[in-house]
């Protein structure tokens, strides 16, 4: 749910559009006999403040859909709108990739600082904001480190801090924890859940993990195998804040959602 003050300050025009609108989108890679239909036709509306998780077997086009929403690619047919406009990279959405994609010539703090610079934050304000952003993703005393001096999990935290720097209304995450070990992944999931509840921004999260989908999502969409279509669209009615992660996972509702989504994913594959 969006926080009350966010809803109060949002301009009236914003409310006419969902945060993300996907209309009859199809996407084809290549041409002629080489052409591969990756996605669609698919239609989706993501209301502001939702945490949508796209889950499905590998190659189902879920990353493609995210890239379309980020504006990195244009759909072959149909239309994608974010906040009512054609998405443009760097405008209105922070993106976290599977690999951290940090700039090795910058320090950890320098990476976040660069994002603030692009977002138009005045130079004098940046150091404080860098510290605040790193703090928000659970990093302390690493701003001066080199990127290769911190662990993979920490690098991905920096990538999240960097994506949050622009204060964009939309956060797009493409299997950000897939390359991490199980323990680190769980920690980051818990922290992302907390951060998303705190910031209340709309998120679209791509994963192939059913557990991750149920744990993070306020809504889960299961895609069929290529070309990806909606196989299941389900609201996750679990508390967004409150119980600690272990309690949450122990809830009966959690287990039944997990079973239902898991079944849909297996059927789709």
């Amino acid at each position: 749910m969006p926080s009350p003050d966010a809803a109060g300050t949002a301009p009236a025009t914003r409310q006419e559009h969902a945060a993300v609108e996907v209309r009859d989108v199809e996407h084809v890679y290549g041409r002629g006999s080489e052409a591969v239909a990756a996605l669609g036709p698919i239609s989706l509306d993501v209301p502001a403040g939702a945490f949508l998780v796209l889950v499905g077997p590998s190659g189902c086009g879920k990353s493609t859909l995210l890239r379309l929403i980020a504006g990195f690619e244009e759909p072959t047919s149909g239309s994608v709108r974010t906040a009512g406009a054609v998405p443009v990279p760097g405008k209105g959405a922070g993106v976290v990739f599977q690999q951290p994609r940090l700039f090795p010539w910058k320090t950890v703090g320098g990476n976040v600082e660069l994002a603030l610079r692009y977002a138009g934050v005045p130079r004098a304000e940046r150091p404080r904001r860098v510290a605040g952003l790193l703090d928000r993703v659970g990093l302390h005393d690493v701003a001066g480190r080199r990127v290769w001096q911190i662990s993979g999990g920490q690098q991905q935290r920096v990538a999240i801090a960097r994506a949050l720097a622009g204060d964009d209304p939309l956060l797009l995450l493409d299997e950000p924890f897939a390359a991490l070990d199980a323990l680190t992944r769980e920690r980051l999931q818990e922290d992302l859940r907390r951060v998303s509840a705190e910031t209340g921004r709309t998120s679209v999260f791509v994963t192939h993990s059913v557990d991750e989908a149920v744990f993070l999502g306020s809504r889960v969409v299961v895609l069929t195998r290529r070309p990806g279509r909606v196989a299941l669209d389900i609201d996750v009615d679990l508390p967004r804040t409150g119980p600690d992660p272990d309690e949450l996972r122990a809830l009966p509702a959690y287990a039944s959602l997990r079973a239902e989504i898991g079944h849909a994913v297996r059927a789709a594959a």
Partner: protein
Amino acid sequence: MTSPASLRPDAGRSAPAASAEGSGSPAGSPRAARYRRFGVRVLALAVLLVLWQLLAAATRNPSFIPSPRAVWDQLVLTSTVHDGTRGYSGHLLVEHLGVSLRRILIGSALGVVAGLALGVIMGTVPWIRVVAEPVVTFVRVLPPLAYFSLLIIWFGIDETPKLWLLTIAALPPVAVATASAVYAAPVGLVEAARALGATRWNVVGDVVLPSALPEIFTGVRLAVGVAYSSVVAAETINGVPGIGGMVRDAQRYLQTDVVVLGLLAIGVSGLLIDAVLRLAELRFIPWRGRA
């Protein structure tokens, strides 16, 4: 006795890097390995000197192979004022070397700047790459002496043609390295920058160029090397003062010991400059090999 972390070259790095360096020598600490390497080099140098001395003694023709001693004497002679003569041809050895180094420095600096600019354009604009690539390769394979004649006709026999020669010689390696690195800029990082709101120019300045820096630096080291090997060619005409001019004059008068001395001076100063460039690389591109 010593911990890897206390080692100077590894001071700015993480512990794994230090131990990786040490892994080359399973027997001892990295410092011991460094001493051993230094020892091996000194020993090799000593062996070389002995062989040289033996060869000189065996041939007994100082115009053919001067002895180490004769070269040493020339080092002293050319570095001092003796019998009212200053060094060699009126200039001390360091002055010859200094003039040549100045030419190398200016020539390769101009070549690096021009090569960098050309390389960036070649790496970003496809049709310019198509046009410029064969031209750059054409110039790169030309021996400097071949186009020096043309430069002499155009620019006379003073400093200008020499600097042009070194600039033209230094440009291609930098242009080629820069173009290939810019062209192969990591797509993932460019995309990440765009997702953060980087403009086209931001992407070039903040991602493409930094990511190309390691390769550009290799190009610069090559360029300085090429400028070095071209300076003797540049100084074949009106080259005194200049180490190449000195060598050429000495060759004319069959002063083989001076020729050898000149070669040593060029080689040793070249090693030093390359070492400086390598240190600069460690200092300015610490992420090399880690991205």
